[in-house]
């Protein structure tokens, strides 16, 4: 029998790196959960997400469009505690509880779409600038500077106004405004990471530029983006609700900012509930993501731990 000893297959480095990364992720999770304040934030987020996902089960979805407030014209301006309307109704007979619950779904859509879009665009632009450098870097960063020169809310407001009032235009406007932050973060990180020895060694063993970027540079640059993205999950809802409040969403949309705006007219006559509950939800949403983002930063970036 031919005695050919097969050399043991060498594990591709990627799987080794993956194990290390998974272990690191586990460590980060454990460390993050050690901070009670972060856990409070996490609990709020879980509850909000659960509410958003279970919205069709928690309420009777409005036909044909569940994101539009149902109108009960026989129950206008009912105070909280009214049978069938535990949080009261609006001046148009909208059930405040329905708005609170479906508003979480609207907010979830808004924040996930905007954060995903801005992180993607920002990562691509920031990577091109940081990894390639030179003229491309110079041009891209000037574009970023121009975008940063216009105050965020005003910029988003102007874009949404030009596009016309609708919730999807608010999403688009926020995506156009918010990617620059990520481009800046990623670029800075990449320039920093590029100088590491392991990048040089990868170059020496003949890895292609793209492979070096994908395997060594990007994964080591992404951490601050995660912190920023967590914070932005909250901030986006805050700004989106502000634009809705000003009147750039469709009227009657089950969205917290729209509800606060609709409830505003009633406060002079003592009808406090229609604005108060949806507004409280915006606050809690933003608060939760700020708490978790803070906790994550403390763990991922120990330099700022004392802050």
């Amino acid at each position, binding site marked *: 029998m031919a005695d050919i000893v097969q050399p043991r297959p060498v594990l591709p480095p990627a799987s080794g790196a993956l194990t290390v990364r998974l272990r690191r992720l586990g460590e980060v999770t454990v460390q993050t959960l050690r901070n009670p304040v972060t856990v409070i934030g996490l609990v709020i987020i879980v509850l909000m997400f659960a509410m958003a996902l279970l919205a069709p089960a928690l309420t009777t979805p409005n036909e044909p469009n569940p994101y539009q407030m149902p109108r009960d014209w026989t129950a206008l301006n009912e105070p909280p505690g009214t049978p069938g309307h535990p949080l009261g109704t609006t001046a148009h007979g909208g059930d405040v509880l329905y708005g609170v619950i479906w508003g979480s779904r609207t907010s979830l859509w808004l924040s996930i779409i905007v954060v995903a879009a801005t992180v993607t665009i920002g990562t691509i632009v920031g990577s091109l600038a940081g990894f390639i450098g030179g003229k491309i870097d110079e041009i891209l960063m*000037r*574009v970023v*500077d*121009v*975008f940063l*020169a*216009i*105050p*965020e*809310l*005003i*910029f988003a*407001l*102007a*874009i*949404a*106004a*030009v*596009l*016309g*009032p609708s919730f999807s235009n608010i999403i688009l406007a926020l995506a156009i405004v918010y990617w620059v932050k990520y481009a800046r973060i990623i670029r800075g990180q990449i320039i920093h990471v590029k100088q590491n020895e392991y990048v040089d060694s990868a170059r020496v063993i003949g890895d292609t530029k793209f492979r070096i970027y994908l395997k060594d540079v990007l994964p080591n640059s992404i951490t601050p983006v995660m912190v920023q993205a967590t914070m932005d999950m*909250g901030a986006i809802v*805050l700004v989106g*609700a*502000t634009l809705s*409040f*000003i*009147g*750039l969403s469709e009227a009657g949309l089950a969205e917290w*900012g729209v509800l*606060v*705006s609709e*409830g*505003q007219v009633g*406060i*002079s006559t*003592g009808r*406090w509930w229609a*604005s*108060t509950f949806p*507004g*409280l939800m*915006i*606050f809690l949403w*933003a*608060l939760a993501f*700020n*708490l978790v983002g*803070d906790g994550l930063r403390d763990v991922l970036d120990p330099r*700022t731990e*004392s*802050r």
Partner: protein
Amino acid sequence: MQIRDYLIRRLMVLPILLIGVSIIVFALTRVGGSPIGIYMSHEMTPEEVEELEDRYGLNDPLPVQYFAWAGGVLRGDLGWSGVAVAPVTQVFRGKLAATMELATAAGLVAVTLGITLGTFAGSRRDRLPDHLTRVFSVSGSSMPDFWFAIVLLIVFWVYLGWFPVGRSDPAIWASIAHPTGLYTIDSLMAGSWQAFRDAIWHLVLPAITLGLATTAIITRMMRSSLVEELNEDYVDAARAKGLPERLVLKRHARRNALIPTMTVIGLSFGFLLQGTVVVEIIYQWPGLGRWLADAVLRGDQATIMAYVLFTSVLFLTVNLAVDIIYAYLDRRVVLGS
């Protein structure tokens, strides 16, 4: 790099940024289709519309249109405001005074409160006051200002009746002259105690609302830089020579901690300015922000674009000033870059 070179470089980038902003603003006016809609009426024939477009140069290539528009802006022609039914520049000044008065009041609240709270927390690190301050600053930056305004109104206007809405009592407002347009200053110049009281009375709630988020940011920055400074060697040296803790804090640590806080204060100016939009809507404050909100809802492009241009120019200028001051105060910045 010398401070002078740094300055020159920063000043050279400024025009590039301004041109960039103006291109974005111009592009925005064309995204929503031809701006001819403002001048059109339903009775016009297509030929008349065509003629109108020709008169305003709307059939020219876009770059030509851009230069025509930018030239107008440089000459102070910002177009016609449909909401105010007047040229934008004419309405701007009066509204600007109202907004600046509000933003300044909010800024004063934020700076005073932020530095005080930040110092208080930073010098009591990881003790109860520090934790409470942290809760305050995280809540403050998570607060939707439009909702906070409504809650304050429900409590202090509807239920307690302590504070009014609006900017002034019309009768008292009419009783004095308004050379500056700033109600507080005008009332002092007129020597009217009644008017001054009225001005402050109307300012309290909007200024607190607008200042909250900024207070939170300043508090946070002040606290963390104070904590950092208190770990420095010079603080140990000051303590070692027997200086009382109060003086170590006041004379040494706090002074240095104020340097990074200064930048945050400068940058928060843009933040305050954009916050005026919702605050002015809710408190019925007759300023730029409310005008902008009306313009947004009624498609008054000239007003929107003037506002974007104005805030960006102001924002860039303030940022530049802050960077220069910071470079002078903390030489490491310049030498490091």
